[in-house]
């Protein structure tokens, strides 16, 4: 299933692996712009428990580029801002094989 385009003033949040299992979704559209430092709290509000169970051990990418959620959080207002049309992905480690 191809991910449809995000509506105006929104960005696409893609879920992989355990993030898909937790949200039971492949993606969400969230309002943009949004500071990256607020992303995890926004997702936690939508899916209580996801932060500890999934997000904190996941890799995070913005437009296919790895970003460090913790470093971004420390930057506060100076950090990356997710723009409308961006593709953000939550990539939990898959360990099975």
């Amino acid at each position, binding site marked *: *299933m*191809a*991910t449809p385009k995000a509506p105006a003033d929104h960005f696409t949040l893609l879920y*992989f*692996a*355990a993030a898909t*299992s*937790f949200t*039971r979704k*492949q993606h969400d559209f969230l309002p943009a712009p949004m500071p990256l430092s607020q992303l995890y709290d926004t997702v936690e509000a939508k*899916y*209580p*428990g*996801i932060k*500890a*169970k*999934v997000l*904190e*051990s996941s*890799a995070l*990418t913005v437009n*296919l*580029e*790895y970003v*460090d959620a913790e470093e971004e959080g420390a930057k506060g207002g100076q950090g990356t801002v997710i723009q409308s049309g961006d593709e953000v*992905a939550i*990539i*939990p*480690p*898959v*360990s*099975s*094989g």
Partner: protein
Amino acid sequence: MDMDMDMLTSTDDHIRRLRDQVTATESQLRTLRAQLQQAEQAGESARQLQEAYQGGFPAEWIEETLGALDDEAVADIATKLRQDGGFEGAPSPPTPPPTLDAREAVAKQRRWPLRDEEYKRYGRQMIMPEIGLHGQLRLQNAKVLIVGLGGLGCPAAAYLAGAGVGTLGLVDGDTVEVSNLHRQILHKKKTVGKLKVDSALEYLQALNPNVKYAPYRAHLSPEKAGSIFERYDIVLDCTDHPTSRYLISDTCILTGKPLVSASALKTEGQLLVLNNPPRSPGDTTGGPCYRCVFPRPPPAETIQSCSEGGILGPVVGVMGVLQALEAIKLITAKPEPSMPDWMDMTLDGSPPASAEEVKPTMLLFSAYSRPQFRSVRLRSRRNDCAACSLQATITHHSLASGLTDYTAFCGTTTTTTSPLSFLPSSARITARDFARLPTDGSNILIDVRDSTQYSICALRGSTNIPWNGGGNGSGEAWVQQAIDMGVLSEYEDGRERFVICRRGEDSQMVVRAVRERFGGGYADGLEGDGEVDGRWGGSMGVRVRDIRGGFGAWREEVDRTWPKY
């Protein structure tokens, strides 16, 4: 007069000395010119040899060239070829053999670097410029360690053995099970119960006996990992658990080996080439390690194995095949062509990007998404990484002494042999006892497996309300759904509820969630709060119990024909 004669003699002497000097200098000049010419010729030959070497070269050509040029520069290249190009048995500077026969025998032996059968076997890959003879020789001299011979390791090993890798190390302590066979392509019905290493050896020996196989019939341990890794050039992580993933990555950093890591679950896979180029801890030009990408392991209770989460054979197969591909690319990579000085600057004056500056990537495969493949650019090494930074705390010593405790780092996990048990026994019933209960409608059976499993096999009269990890984990949503469906009721109706799942863990979560919602105690009222208004949790206690051990126990204790999947 005497004086005049003396003067004349001295002038003659002077002229003679000058002439001698000119002659000597001219001779020296001639020698220098000859040496220059010789050096230039040698240089040219060396250049040609170098060019030929980059594309693959015929063995007898280099031997002839070596014989003709007895020059240090050429000897150096030959040495380099032997080391770098993996040219085992390359001709060394000739020492005349005693007889003509012997010389012929040696020449015959040396003429082609591969045996006749090998040209045929590897020809299809060798005729590609990416491989060539040069690449084939490098493969032949390469030593690759494969940790794990499951869904990833099987295809990876098959392709690397097929490609003619010189030595393949195989590590696994598991035995083959029937449930492996849909994806672990080296194993077969006949080898069920055998060690995976031995089962794989059987297949690989039959596929390509030219490869040297080194079996390690045990799970990788932190104590032994270092000494095993030392013997190899590249490591493939084909394991199935976070503890081994961190152990393998750490050991690759400590031993300076590039790591090709892959994983798969359900319909998705991930591929990472780590510690490439392999550099010592603190060297930021080295590739990131597994900890740089995933510094924190996922909570132990969220980790799913293939037996719990499921796995589609070709999904894990694709990932294993890609691992073999990345390993072949690493082994056969040609050295960067040297550029003339004037090319060192690009048009805008910035230094050109070398291959090493290209950021590493993670490949995501998602079989049911479009696009199926996504390539994500990764970060470089973390400057606070526990394994590959200057602040690294993981050392050979910490591994060997057990100071680096992977089980503690990743958390304790439940295994398939011992499911969690956290309910008091009063809230549980054995499958055998449940089977003896009257089937007169006085109790309700709730099956909490997902609908896919429910449709594989289910008990007649049961109601399916999938637990699905309890929604947000608390189970509130599940309880609400059960109430909405009329399966649970706020009011006592005289009927007892029984909850069953696949292995007997989710059913306990459900019972706990129901109790949290309605309060009160368990079935026999021993722990009840004793509310007396006739509601759930009242004097009757919460009348809901889990069936101990789920359908696994049902099969063992009640119905031997119950499908085990």
